[in-house]
């Protein structure tokens, strides 16, 4: 089980949380990979990839279902990434027995168009701050309209609903224009 504070930490931008996480696991994780035949610089890169994967899994509500500790889960992801890394270099990983679970680390478990994601990303980057903030609250923080109002960001539920519709419409239209253009 991963504690809910940790999951919320990964869903947040909290500098203190990430710094503390980095300091806590960096040494052990990098040593764990070095023992499996990966040089330090590459082990650090894999460590970074794993933190990013944890963040992604927090956003996708996958960390909530994890049945092992955070460290075990992190190291399981690390082992997978190390395996992929060495496979790319056509090298073999040094096998050391462990009880780490198998973890899915690919981004798209559902069918999704990478091109579409990239277009949406481009459009969001030029959207107004208000729209972007609303989309983040809704899609990443998982807040309901009621919760957004309760947090004090908006006057009432109607305002949120109206703004959300406007933002999504704007995004859809810009994508349609791009597609047709």
């Amino acid at each position: 089980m991963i504690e809910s504070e940790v999951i919320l930490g990964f869903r947040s931008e909290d500098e203190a949380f990430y710094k503390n996480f980095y300091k806590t696991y960096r040494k052990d994780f990098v040593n764990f990979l070095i023992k499996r035949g990966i040089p330090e610089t590459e082990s650090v890169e894999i460590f970074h990839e794993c933190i990013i994967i944890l963040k992604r899994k927090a956003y996708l509500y996958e960390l909530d279902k994890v049945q092992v500790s955070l460290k075990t889960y992190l190291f399981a992801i690390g082992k997978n990434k190390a395996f992929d890394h060495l496979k790319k270099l056509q090298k073999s990983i040094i096998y050391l027995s462990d009880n780490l679970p198998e973890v899915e680390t690919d981004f798209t478990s559902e069918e999704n168009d990478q091109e579409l994601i990239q277009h949406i990303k481009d459009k969001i980057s030029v959207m107004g701050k208000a729209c972007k903030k609303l989309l983040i609250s809704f899609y990443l923080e998982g807040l309901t309209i009621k919760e957004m109002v309760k947090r004090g960001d908006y006057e009432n539920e109607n305002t949120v609903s109206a703004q959300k519709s406007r933002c999504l419409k704007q995004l859809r239209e810009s994508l349609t224009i791009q597609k047709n253009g």
Partner: protein
Amino acid sequence: MDKQKLIEQYLTKSLTKEEEREFHRLMDSDPEFKADLNFHLGIKKALILEKEEALGSKLVGYENAYQRTKSIQRTLFRITVAAALIISMLLVVLKYNKTPVEANQLFLSYFTPAENIHYPITRGESDTLIVQAFTAYEQGQFDKALELLLLMQGTGQYEGLDLYIGSAYLAIGEVNNAIKVLNPNNVKDSLLLYRYKWYQSLSYVKSSEYDSARILLEDIVAKKAFKSEKASLLLKKLPQD
């Protein structure tokens, strides 16, 4: 069932079993629903990618900070080790350099080889081994004397040699051998006993074992025995261990 709500529930992984069935039914049968889901999923993943990129840059910064801290810790560790080494070396120098000079000076001020009271060399002495050994001893040729005295002791025919052997060892600086040979516990003759104690106390002085020396010297002084006046003076000059 509200399609929009189904998508929202799907995005937060909170579909009930029934909603999940409906969700899959719509995915298979309703292209518009599927396209709408892909649009929402696309937004979510695009936002995630943006956050991931931002975090990636921060992680590089954290690693740089980690390396800096590690480097500072390494430097501090080296400085600490170097300081500890210097301090240890100083302590060793203080212990083994300063004290022996002091100990040796004290020893030299009080040491004279044990007087030959067992085997006076007379013209009539026919035992050449005794003559050679004690002639060398009295002439200060302690290496030669020691060799001959040990030879005599090996024969088992001579008594009281330990005092001179110990004294010769002391004279040539073999303190540990002197301490062993001059053990007062092996001496039965009460007159000789305090000579052994005196020379053993000098052995301890030479090896800077002042507490051991002090015990013997205090005994000599208390009993007003052999060299008690010198023992009293030496006691006053002994440094603390």
